[in-house]
Each structure stands twice: as C-alpha cells, then as structure tokens.
C-alpha cells in the first residue's frame, strides 16, 4: 500500500512538473493571464463602476455571482456546525457559585433548579476567576475592534477589505468577549436565534439586492438597474450596490463565525466552554 502511495505521489509530482514546462515565465507581462482579461478590467473598471479598488469590483460586481455562492458556502458551514454538533439535551452536571461567600455548588441531578441571580452565579466546570486585567483590557478593546470591523466593511471599495474580512473581525470581537469573560456572557447577549437570523438575513440581503435588480428589469445582480430606487448619483450606483452586498456578506460571516465558535467550544450545548 505504501509503495502504491509512493508511486502515485511520484506520478502526480511528475505530471505537475511536466505541466510547468509550457507555463509562461514568472511575472511575464505578455502572458495570457495578464493580457486577456486583466487589460479590460484595468482599463474599464473605474469608468464602468466608479470603484477605485479593482479587486472589490471584480469580486463583487463582475464575478458577484461567485461571491454570492461563497457567502452561501459560509452559511452552509455554520448550519453544518449547528446540525451536527448542537445538542439540546440538558447538561448533566451544573455548577453555581455563591457570590458573597465564594462557595461552589455542584448539582448532579439535572432536575434540581437554582435561579442564577445576585446571590448565585452560574459558572463553568473549568472555571477560573476572571482576571481583572484581561477583562478590563478586552472590555476596552472590543468596541474599537468592532468599529474597525465596520470600517473594513464600509471601506472595501476604496482600500483592501470588504465583507468577509470585516465580518471575521467583528465575529472575533464577540469571540474575544467569550474568551475573556465566559461563554455564558456571550450567549446571554448574542442569542442563538439572533445569530441564525443574522446568518440567513445576511445572505438574503445579497440575494435580495440581486433579485431587486431582476425585478427592475435587469439581469440578476445588475446593480445599475437599482438607480431609480436610490436618491444618489446614478454613476455611483454600482459602488452602492457593492457596498450593499458587502454589508450582507459581513453580517452573514460575523454570525457564522460566532455560531461555529459557540458550537465547537461548548460541544453543542451552548452552556459552558472555553
């Protein structure tokens, strides 16, 4: 078996090497990849879409149909985590802490109820006292991370960035909250319902903008057709359309990041974890 594996690897490597023989030179300005379509994009994008960032224009407009499905892939990943990991059975053991005394209570019977409130605090199995420095620093950082995420989403058509990156940054700010406090704090503020609705709604914004263009009599995702709907300079309409889909992507990616994190760290129970 190992021998066969070796032979197959050698054959594949040989094939790949053989394939490189006729490839254009490294950085060759005359190669097909840099002459066939690139020229068109470089010469026409700013004039046709009013977007200075060529990458965003190709991604969200010329190949916007691909990007829509990439967002759907992200959504699938989140849904897959939910479908396979989510465990609705109540946890067997639960831990509480009596706040004034610091005494820890361990409930082995799932039917015993104790309302977490001022006196008792719900806590995790691997609980360690939250470090004040970490908590404070994260509390200060999180809003700035989120503002930066919004900037990355909104500024995608001028500078490197866009919905995927902004969404990941925003999602990571929420994950940072879960790490610096505990998972409960996050789940209390950002509920499962909220996240799943945002994940679906984000992609729906993308598809919805496309369908709106179709209803206005254009092709699917033809942002130019949306001009009558928006009180803005018609020349900028494609840039606005891209901003719209980037916002949708950002929302979906943010929600999916958090869904994946919560489901993996808590083994689908959403009660305790890292």
């Amino acid at each position, binding site marked *: 078996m190992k021998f066969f594996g070796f032979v197959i690897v050698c054959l594949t490597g040989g*094939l*790949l090497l*053989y*394939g*490189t*023989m*006729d*490839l*254009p030179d490294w950085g060759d300005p005359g*190669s*097909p*990849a*840099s*002459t*066939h*379509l*690139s020229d*068109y*994009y470089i010469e026409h994008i700013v004039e046709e879409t009013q977007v200075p960032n060529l990458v965003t224009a190709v991604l969200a*407009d*010329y*190949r*916007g*149909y*691909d990007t829509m*499905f*990439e967002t*759907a*892939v992200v*959504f*699938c*990943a989140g*849904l*897959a985590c*939910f*479908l*396979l990991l*989510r465990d*609705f059975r109540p946890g067997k053991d639960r831990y509480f802490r009596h706040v004034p005394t610091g005494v820890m209570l361990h409930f082995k019977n799932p039917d015993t109820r104790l309302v977490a409130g001022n006196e008792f605090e719900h806590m995790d199995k691997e609980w360690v006292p939250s470090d004040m420095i970490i908590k404070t620093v994260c509390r200060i950082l999180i809003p700035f991370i989120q503002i930066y995420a919004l900037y990355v989403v909104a500024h995608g058509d001028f500078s490197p960035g866009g919905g995927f990156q902004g969404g990941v940054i925003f999602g990571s700010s929420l994950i940072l909250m879960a790490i610096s406090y505990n998972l409960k704090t996050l789940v209390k503020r950002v509920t499962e*319902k909220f996240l*799943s*609705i945002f*994940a*679906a*709604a984000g*992609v*729906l914004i993308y*598809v919805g903008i*496309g*369908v709106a*263009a*179709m209803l206005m*009599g*254009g*092709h*699917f*995702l*033809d*942002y*130019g057709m949306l001009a009558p709907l928006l009180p803005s300079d018609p020349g900028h309409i494609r840039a606005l359309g891209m901003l719209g889909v980037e916002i949708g992507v950002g929302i979906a990616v943010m929600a999916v990041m958090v869904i994946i994190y919560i489901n993996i760290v808590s083994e689908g129970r959403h009660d305790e974890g890292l």
Partner: protein
Amino acid sequence: MNNMPAILVLAPLLGAFFAGLAAWIQKQLSYYIALAAMAVSCFAAVSVLTDVITSGTMQYRMAGWAPPMGIELRIYLLNAMVLVLISAIAFVNLVASVKNVEQEISDRAPSFYVMYLLFVVGLLGVTATGDLFNLYVLIEITSLTSYTLIALGDKDRGHLAALNYVFIGVIGASFYLLGVGYLYITTGSLNMADVAVILKGIQGSSAVLTAFILCILGVWIKMALFPLHVWLPNAYTFAPVGFARVVAPLMTKVMVYVMVRLMVTVFGLEYIFETLHLADAVVWLAVTAILAGAFTALFQTDLKKMLAYIIVCEIGYMVGGAWLGNSLGMTGAILHILNDGLMTFALFLAVGNIIYMRKQVAFSNLSGLFAAMPWTMAGFVLAGLSIIGVPPTCGFFSKWYLVLGAFEAGAYHFAAALVISSLVCAVLFFKVFEICFFGSAPGAPGHHVPGNPQPSHDIHSAGHAWAKADSGAGAHSPAEVMAEAPVSMLAALGLVSVAIIAAGVYAGTIVNTIILPFLQ
C-alpha cells in the same frame, strides 16, 4: 429578456434562507417553503428546456456583463435536460420523503430542508453555469451540504462515512481547482466557451494536458469512478433516507454531466481523441469499474449497499460510453445520465419505503415483502428490470446505444463487460426478488389478507406485529399482512415508474431532439 435560467437556480437559494428564517416562526413552514421553491425551480427548468429545444442555446449574463468579463449561464440541450432531471427528482423526493425525515431527524427537520435546498442549488448551478470557476464554487456547495447531510444519517457509522467522504471529496475538488488554475494561466480566461476557442490554438501545450488530466481526475473522484470510489458505498448507505434518495441518483450523474461538458464544450472531442491517446486506457478503466462494481455488489448482504455498488458499476457505463470516441457511445452515455437518474431514484424510493416500514434493509429483513408491500415492490421490480436492461424500460435503450458504440469503436471488451454486468445485475435482483417473495418470516404461514389497494390502513398495528415476528415468537406469520408505505411515497414511486417506461418508449425522441442536436 428571459430570466428563467437564473430563476431556476435562485428559487431554491431564496427558499433555503426563507425556510431557515421561517423555522423560527413555525417549524412546519420551512417544509412548505422548500416545496414551493422546488416547484418554482421545476417550472423554470421545464420552461428553459422547451425554450432551448425551440430556439437553441440560451445565454444569461450575470450582472449584465458580457461573457469573458462576467459570469454567464450557458444552457445547451444537454444541460437543459439534466436541469429538468435534477429539479424534478428533488421536487418529487421532497414530497416522498417528508415522513422519512420526520421519522429519522425530526428534531432538526427545518435545518435539514435548508441544507437540502442548498444541495439542490449546488447541483442546478453546476449544471447551468458556463464558467469554470463558478462550477468549482458550486461543487463546493454541493459537497459541503452532502458531507453534512450524510453525517446526519446512521448514528454509529454515518460520521465516519462522512469523514471519509470529506477527505476524498476535498482532494477531488482541489484537483479540479488546480486544473482550472493551469487553464487560467495558459488561457487567461475562465469562461468555458472562451477557453475552448483559445485552447484550439495551443493544443500541444503540456500545461493544457496537465490541466485536462487534473480536471478529469477531480471529476472522477467526485463521481466515484472505480479505483476512486471507496467513499461512495458507505456514504450512500449510511445517509438518511430523505437525502440518500436524492444524492444517489443525482450527485454522480451531475458529475458525469460535468465530465461530458468539459470534454465536449471546453477541451473539444478532437483534442481528446486525436491529440491525446488516453481513450483506450480510460475504456479499460471503465471496464474494470463495471466488473468490479457488479461483482462487489454480489457479495453485499444489505440492499442499500448493494445498490451503492450498482451505482459504481453504472458510472463505468457512462464513463466508458463517453470515452469510446464515437457519437453512438456518447449518445448512450448521455441517455444513461437521464435513465440511470430515474432508475436509481426509483430503487432508492422503494428502499426508503421499506426502511420506513421495517427500519432495516439487510437481506434477512426482506422476507415477505411482496405480500406486505406489493405496490412498493412493483416499483422496485420495474426499476430492477430497468437496471438489468429489459425492454421496454429505459435501461435497455441506453445500454443498446452503448453496445452499438462499443462495436463501432471495436471495443469488444466494453461490450462484453456490459453484457456480463447485466447478467450479474439479473442475478442480484432475482436474488432479492426471491428473498422478498419466497423467504418466509419466522413462524408458520399465516392467513392471507387480500391485497388491499388502499395502502394507508393500520400501519402501526402491522409494524407492531413485525416487532413480534422479529422476536421469533409470533403464532401467526405477519408476513402476509399488508403493511404498505403511506400514499405520498407510493405516488412518488408510481410517478417515477411511469417515467422509467416513458423514457424507454420515447428514447428515440429524446435522442433525436436533445442528444444528437447537442453533439452536432
């Protein structure tokens, strides 16, 4: 402007997200949204097919950009036919499988329907697109959703089967992507039609050869051609019924379509059969696939797994036919995409009905099925005969074209493999029929309840009787108590059985109006 090509992909996509949102209002809503979305998609697919037949190839520019710059959907007669097949099977299965889903994964049924719709979006998108990279993105969606849904299946073995599938599937997808990368470097374009024009000028290039081999290998892994098939039997056996019924007939067939599409409309048949000299080797590979699939199926003791190996065998038919290098073989392969889709769907519908009533389909559980589930078994027998290739069922006609193609190409080993595998399939199915017909349940033969055409009577007590019989203590044999599946499942099976006969009777029309014009 005709938006139908976009609508047929977008309806299930929109449906998926609305179904996901609606689940928070009322769980049942997501099923009805899924049903409506598939109905719209089905309608759009049929309308696209009629348009393509009357007015030729259809192009749809996404976002309004002209093809090499933007992405286009390009629908030939071939894809139009496959699109109708996909949307119809996905719709009928949604009707047939609602009870299976309730039985197997009731607690997460809404998410199942969302995933199901996304899977169908992937298949439809792969079939409709005219862009090489877009094809990859949609293959990714189909794969990701099918990994998830397969892992939802059998509690003990579903996860491992899905994990195997993930490893092999990801390798397949990356091969394809790498191939597209080589193509992009040498042509600078991703549009299939554009790439085809540029490739005509650089046929001797080693990079193009590498691109071709990588793309085809990737697609072969995804379609489970014989030595690369190891993920398939377990994945399809342990998937939940509601999903197995749609992935088994469609996934492999759509990948065969992708192979044919790449061969005919991207690389070009002259390049493959005149510049390269791979065709003979591939036909031999197909012959091994056919024989290996058929003979491995002989050793199975579980009906679902036996059918999974038959799929491996059928893949060999289609790959071999496409690589024979003549129009008859290609016609047979394309016709077989349609026919095998229908036959496999009918077989899995029947298996799903049996699982719904009896939980398991190991051969030991099948005894007395003809008496207990006569309508289901009627559909099963018809589909089985079609797989064997008995006229007037559709399976006969595609095999006929394949055999003719084999003789014209002088590939007698391929013709022999077809005949041998048909005989093996006959042995397989008659073995199953025998167990279902003569195999008596434990205990003495009981009284015969006359065949009641109303299948919806008293399922629960019959199921209860079965539980007793399995414990081996039943005084009356319940083997002949009728315990037929619900009407919705039988109606779906009946519809597909009619389609099998119709596809057989109208095989000539299909070949003359769809396949031959496409190949010219």
